[in-house]
């Protein structure tokens, strides 16, 4: 057991595990020390000097990096400490593009909030600004270094959390800037568009590319039939945009809101998730039975796909050829729904709402053509609902539109790490054994452990499975397979830690809340409870999916499926 130490913070005694930061120890007794560069689980850096406290040393120390020690006496709120913090805030603001009113993060900016909290009413030390160009090269993210406060939270998210490391500090001193190496742009490097950087950013220095205008234009065009699909994880977080508690599932309100915004049809990506299980399950069974390449690895996460294409293209043959649910849905809408409704393909605008910044990149991959026309994220949907003056909290629930809006519980859990694997197992087991699976909740692959593995007995075979979320964990897993240390049959990988519920397009959560609550766990709970509430919880039981096979596709893994629902990947360079 870890050693406990006892210290005094503002006269209050507190006991914590040795090595706990003073910042966390203070939080335990209800003292919230302001922070900027600190982000729980991502970055403790000690650079912004906002969380400084008096620890009896000759200078003030950053509480985020100060390990609690026995007998320490800490003061967090003396006049000296307050003034020091405020002056550092003034200094940060003196070199910050203060066009707050038109900033993406206006009203949701930690810099703004912290400055307000410190009662900064003047910036006395104005001087030269560093001026940089915007980086608009990425389809998913905008980098605005003029709003950057060099807290390095994005650097830690990209490097330490995701083990990708395409952005970092260059230059020194006042000229320091966070950017890709060799002055390259985000669009030119091995960035996977996961958006963990923008989720970590406290200001408007990295933001999601805003595509809402394209959607408004389409809705306003009387000649266009605008169809929308929403990914599973969106419903677990959209409520946060409107102040609902983290972990509130808002499926019904979301469907109503989309209808009120003026979409002609409101479909559910969950339908395509069920469809994905039919295809992927069939593909897996085929590989098992015909000595195909194993392990097979899931292909739903576009961040993971690009990561693999840059870093692990030796695993190309292991990749499931299934398109992601977004692209399957796009294909079904343009190739099945349009002719069925007698609407010319060019008059359909296919919009998707995703928790994921990388989906913007995915929809633009040349092989997918115009199956999905516009991708907006949960954040952007929140923005549209606010623009339309919709009082979200008071919306009544409604259902998705029929057929392509129908889904099972298996599809819902696609949004959380382990969910795709669990959904696949529910189907694969029953197809192979022809028996009903009683225990359908696979606890061993749930939860936030970075790498999860299990063995599932199907007929005579011990099927070995593994689940990784976050590309750092994916790297570990793939390296252990490369080296021959590990062997599996089936692997699920999602690029974001926790899965899609923690995607780059999800609502931003203040670092103070991230210090107090486990956001990812709360959102996951929302999806698991929606699954539990569904009448049907196995993809192959989805009657609408069965109907689409009957009407159009034929059989899973069949000729038509291959034409419309499967894809190929490419090798990409790392530099």
């Amino acid at each position: 057991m870890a050693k406990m130490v006892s210290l005094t913070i503002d006269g209050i005694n507190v006991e914590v595990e040795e090595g706990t930061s003073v910042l966390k120890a203070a939080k335990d007794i209800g003292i919230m020390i302001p922070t900027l560069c600190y982000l729980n689980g991502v970055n403790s850096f000690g650079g912004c000097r906002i969380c400084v406290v008096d620890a009896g040393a000759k200078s003030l120390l950053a509480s985020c990096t100060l390990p609690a020690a026995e007998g320490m006496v800490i003061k967090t709120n003396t006049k000296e400490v307050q003034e020091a913090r405020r002056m550092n805030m003034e200094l940060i603001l003196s070199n910050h593009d203060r066009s707050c009113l038109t900033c993406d993060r206006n009203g949701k900016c930690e810099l703004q909030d912290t400055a307000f909290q410190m009662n900064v009413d003047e910036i006395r030390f104005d001087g030269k600004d560093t001026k940089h160009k915007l980086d608009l090269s990425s389809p998913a993210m905008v980098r605005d270094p003029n709003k950057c406060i060099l807290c390095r939270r994005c650097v830690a998210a990209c490097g330490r959390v995701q083990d990708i490391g395409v952005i970092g500090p260059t230059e020194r001193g006042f000229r320091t800037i966070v950017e890709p190496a060799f002055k390259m742009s985000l669009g030119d490097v091995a960035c996977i568009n996961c958006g963990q950087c923008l989720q970590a950013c406290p200001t408007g220095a990295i933001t999601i590319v805003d595509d809402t205008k394209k959607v408004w234009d389409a809705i306003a065009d009387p000649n266009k039939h605008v169809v929308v699909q929403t990914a599973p994880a969106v419903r677990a977080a959209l409520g946060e945009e409107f102040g609902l508690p983290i972990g509130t599932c808002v499926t019904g309100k979301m469907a109503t809101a989309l209808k009120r915004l003026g979409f002609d049809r409101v479909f559910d990506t969950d339908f395509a998730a069920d469809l994905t299980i039919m295809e992927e399950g069939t593909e897996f069974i085929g590989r098992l039975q015909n000595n195909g390449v194993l392990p097979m690895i899931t292909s739903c996460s576009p961040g993971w796909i690009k990561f693999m294409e840059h870093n692990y293209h030796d695993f190309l043959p292991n990749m499931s050829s299934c398109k992601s649910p977004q692209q399957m849905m796009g294909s079904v809408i343009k190739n099945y729904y349009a002719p069925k409704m007698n609407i010319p393909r060019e008059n359909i605008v296919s919009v998707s709402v995703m928790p994921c910044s990388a989906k913007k990149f995915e929809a633009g991959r040349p092989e997918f053509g115009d199956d999905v026309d516009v991708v907006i994220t949960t954040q952007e949907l929140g923005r549209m609902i606010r623009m339309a003056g919709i009082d979200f909290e008071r919306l009544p629930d409604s259902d998705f539109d029929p057929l392509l809006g129908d889904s099972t519980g298996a599809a819902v859990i696609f949004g959380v790490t382990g969910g795709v694997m669990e959904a696949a197992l529910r189907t694969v087991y029953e197809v192979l054994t022809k028996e009903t699976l009683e225990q359908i909740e696979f606890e061993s692959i749930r939860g936030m452990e970075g790498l999860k593995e299990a063995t599932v007995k199907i007929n005579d075979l011990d099927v070995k499975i593994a689940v990784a979320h976050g590309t750092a964990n994916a790297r570990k897993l793939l390296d252990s397979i490369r080296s021959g240390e590990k062997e599996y049959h089936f692997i699920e990988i999602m690029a974001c830690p926790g899965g899609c519920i923690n995607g780059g397009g999800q609502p931003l959560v203040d670092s103070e809340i991230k210090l107090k609550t486990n956001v990812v766990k709360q959102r996951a709970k929302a999806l698991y409870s929606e699954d539990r509430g569904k009448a049907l919880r196995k993809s192959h039981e989805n009657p609408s999916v069965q109907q689409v096979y009957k009407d159009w596709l034929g059989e899973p893994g069949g000729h038509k499926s291959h034409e419309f629902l499967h894809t190929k990947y490419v090798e990409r360079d790392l530099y």
Partner: protein
Amino acid sequence: MITKKDLDKIKAATLTENYLDDSREGIRVTVGMATCGIAAGAKPLFRLLKEGTADLEKVEVKMVGCIGSCRLEPMIEVYEGSKRTTYVFMTPEKCQKVLDEHIKGGKVVTEYTIGAADKENASSITEMSYFKSQKRIVLRNCGTIDPENIDEYIARGGYEALDKVLTSMSKEDVVNTLLSSGLRGRGGAGFPTGLKWKFTMAEADQKYVVCNADEGDPGAFMNRSVLEGDPHALLEAMAIAGYTIGATIGYIYIRAEYPLAVERLKIAIKQAEDKGLLGKNIMGSGVDFTIELRLGAGAFVCGEETALIASIEGERGEPRPKPPFPSQSGVFGKPTVINNVGTFANIPQIIVKGVDWFKSTGTEKSSGTKVFALGGKISNPGLVEVPMGTTLRDIIYNMGGGIPNGKKFKAAQTGGPSGGCIPVDHIDTPIDYDSLAEIGTMMGSGGLIIMDEDNCMVDIARYFLDFTVDESCGKCVPCRIGTKRMLEILERITTSKGKADDISKLKELGKNIKLTALCGLGQTAPNPVLSTIRYFEQEYETHIKEHKCPAGSCQAMIAYFIEAEKCIGCGLCARKCPVDAISGEKKQPHKIDRSKCIKCGACMEACPVDAIYKR
């Protein structure tokens, strides 16, 4: 396996304590071949002497490090028995003459000796007054032994301390010896070395010894001198540290701008390894210790210990928060002792000669000596090693030869960009860690820059801050932005655009940066500003309120004038003026067109009758 007996044998066969003495025949000729000597042209002299003495018996020609008076290079010394002659400002011609008349002919060439050059009745540097008042512990071998020959180091008692530690001292003994010696870190902060080692003794699977040879202070080269002149002293001390804390690996972090030092270290490490004084099972003791070099790219901040550690680990050279301190979590998270070159260089002698010997020099709380790199407005720039507690006056007027050109002393800067100034009122302050801190500056690594009445203190502050702004790593806010804002204010003041509240802003910013910056660089960056305000606030105010620079140094605030009564109309100034700003009839007083004048000062220098002045 090498033993004490072998060391003694080498000693007997090489040099005596005084290099040569009357009991030995022969002549020893040394050529100063540190960076300074080589830059001044020592290499051809060395070759000339080598070749010229090749067929002479009992004459050896050796290269040695820097003896401290770099201004006198190239220097050669001739030892005959206990007699020593120092020749300065050598050229091949002069050298040939020394070879012919002195080395071959036995007659000192008086006109080339150091005494002749510095107008003293002396023929060797050891007789010079400025040398005699020094006390050489760290530099004791610099300029006298061949740094590329381990035998000469051994002959001077080298590696005896290591032998003593390995054969007769426990780890605790070593720490206690250092503790009672009162040795404090020579890298700047003056932390007790024994305490640092003691903190690093707790059990761990791996530990490291690091030598900080980054020496980034502008104008400082104390460490370089040891590295180039006496590298084994460092290696021996590091091995002692390795034994004491239980580390098997040592790193010397040295700036790549010191290629000669790197080369000599490599040679020294190789020689020590070959002799079994480094590597596995040192001197048969069962103790292993190897030393590797790590080259720094010359960022000032990489001299800060945590940034240095990050750099060794291959990370961007940025400081890390303390605690944890390197003694708990240093290189690769392992307990690490990190000391400055000068700190290490003291240790073998403390071990051999004892605590009482060491404590007999210096003050009660700062024992031993300190090496300073004397520069600026001083007659004898170079390295001096003095007992702690020596006064600034002593250093300037005794060892430094005073201020040149009859100018008045104004202030001295210690601690480089991290330190502060000492005004004339404090010229009798004893120089030790605590007295300096009391008057608002610090010991620092040993840069000592002398300023005279022509130096503007605001501009000096601006100069040092400009350096730190440039060298800030950019990690923490107060250093990255705060020092920049201070610099902007100083730039304003020195260009006649100062504002009424600028001084109070400087004080406020300075206080906050010191209080909240992450590392020592930021925490000390405001010192030059705060200390010049403390002692020369009036000078700041004159800049701001009267738009005048009292020292006549800030370009924007001075103008050149011709005194009509003195001007003889010779036209020399007009001809020297690069922008044709001066006009006037022959034999009539001339005038300067200030709209054209670029304030280069060429006219003032040219005027034969001192009719031009600036104000």
